[in-house]
């Protein structure tokens, strides 16, 4: 019987081990995670769980009993210190050595933190990545308190929506000229700016954070426009970095993440990678995706390939975000777009933005417009397109562009 070790017990790790067993793998499987809890869903951390609308157990991707039932050794609260690709073993932080025949790295990513030099290590400064982060900050969410959110990406905006819903005084600063600068068009940024302001969020763009100040605990923020803000706590959402340190120390190739081939193999024999930490070939280039659907799909392909399937991973990127009563669904990647077409939704406050490069549809942001999202997803996943004139016409039936 072979030994499979999976390092990283997030979405990708959990999907990978479940798929191995579902495909009939009879090897010994060990899933190693640093956090003290079984694998769980992260998206609700900045949404329903932060709002207090979802119990902790419901976050678990599988009940705790699942792993034992499936003969998977789940080792939570366990750190990995090193990987030896030649000797084929991993060394835990406790010194214990575990041999492997095949190893999968699903190490995920870590939030970028504010440097200590500008007050990043003060009490009351939080990031949103793990259950422990959110459990630590929920006590801060009482009505009337003043929160500063640093970063106008999806995490910052979702945290702002929860805080505003709970009656906090919310200020959000984004140092770029606008929110969602890196990930969405100005049209989508406009939609969410208006939405947040209508809920009372003091949203300031082109304004960075100079420093946080306080005695042990944050009390104020100095902003790049010279203003000073008294705050009760701070949430930092300024991006994530792939966890590549273990792989790099083991001599694996790194290229904006752990480099894999189309099947998910790293540069070392019998070592695989999937999820946030992995960069893989995509349409002649190489990308790394930070999303749950990618973690699931890529991990499942890697699981099949560890059993010899020889499948290439064909990413069909999609994302979602919940803010107030708006559900944003995104299909495709908008990199390289040269224009954006607006398609009004059936109801007030809904609609979609269609990104094109020339005549080719690349991506759609749908705001509480699941029909626009679904039709675009089906067409894009099949490698097709939809004429911009049709997308712009709310009366045009787009279903005719779907291949059945």
């Amino acid at each position: 019987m072979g030994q499979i070790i999976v390092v990283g017990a997030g979405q990708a790790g959990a999907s990978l081990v479940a798929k191995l067993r579902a495909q009939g793998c009879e090897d010994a499987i060990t899933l190693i995670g640093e956090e003290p809890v079984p694998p769980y869903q992260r998206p609700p951390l900045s949404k329903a769980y932060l709002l207090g609308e979802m119990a902790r157990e419901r976050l678990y991707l599988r009940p705790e009993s699942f792993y034992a039932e499936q003969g998977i050794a789940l080792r939570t609260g366990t750190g990995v210190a090193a990987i030896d690709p030649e000797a084929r073993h991993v060394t835990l932080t406790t010194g214990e050595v575990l041999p492997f025949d095949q190893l999968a790295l699903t190490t995920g990513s870590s939030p970028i933190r504010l440097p200590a030099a500008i007050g990043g290590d003060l009490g009351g400064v939080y990031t949103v990545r793990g259950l422990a982060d959110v459990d630590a900050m929920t006590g801060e969410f009482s009505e009337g308190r003043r929160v500063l959110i640093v970063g106008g990406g999806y995490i910052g905006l979702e945290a702002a929506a929860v805080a505003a819903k709970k009656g906090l005084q919310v200020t959000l600063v984004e140092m770029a000229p606008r929110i969602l600068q890196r990930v969405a068009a100005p049209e989508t940024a406009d939609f969410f700016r208006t939405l947040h302001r209508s809920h009372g969020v003091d949203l300031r763009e082109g304004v960075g954070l100079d420093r946080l100040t306080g005695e042990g605990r944050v009390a104020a923020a100095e902003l790049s426009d010279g203003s000073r803000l008294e705050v009760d706590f701070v949430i930092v959402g300024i991006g994530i970095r792939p966890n590549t340190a273990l792989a790099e120390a083991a001599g694996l190739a790194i290229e904006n993440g752990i480099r894999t081939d189309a099947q998910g193999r790293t540069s070392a024999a019998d070592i695989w990678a999937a999820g946030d930490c992995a960069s893989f070939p995509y349409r002649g280039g190489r990308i790394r995706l930070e999303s749950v659907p990618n973690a699931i799909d890529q991990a499942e392909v890697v699981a099949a390939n560890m059993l010899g399937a020889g499948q290439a991973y064909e990413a069909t990127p999609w994302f979602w975000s919940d803010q107030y009563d708006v559900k944003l669904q995104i299909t495709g990647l908008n990199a390289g777009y040269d224009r954006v077409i607006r398609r009004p939704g059936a109801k007030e406050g809904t609609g979609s933005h269609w990104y094109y490069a020339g005549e080719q549809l690349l991506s759609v942001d749908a705001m509480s417009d699941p029909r626009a999202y679904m039709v675009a997803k089906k067409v894009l996943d099949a490698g097709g397109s939809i004429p911009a004139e049709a997308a712009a016409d709310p009366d045009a039936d787009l279903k005719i562009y779907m291949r059945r």
Partner: protein
Amino acid sequence: MAKITYIEHNGTRHEVDVANGLTVMEGARDNNIPGIEADCGGACACSTCHVYVDPAWVEKLPAKDPMEEDMLDFAYQPDPTRSRLTCQLKVTDELDGLVVQMPEKQI
């Protein structure tokens, strides 16, 4: 608590007890029943937890909200009356005896 029967597309039946407050999707997930994927974890964002509800149950379930209706319209081979997204079906005592069938595939 409700006893729910999940029938895979190949006919395999799974009869399990699901606690009140969970969703029909979570009942399948927690019992390792294949055929319901629920990639988004229950956010009504992906339409991969689609089932056909037994005809006898169609009228007994709470109505679909517009979001669910729209997502279902693009599911794989939806049925206008029997199709539901299981992440939107909250389990209560009233659902005791519910029977759902999984489609051939999700989206």
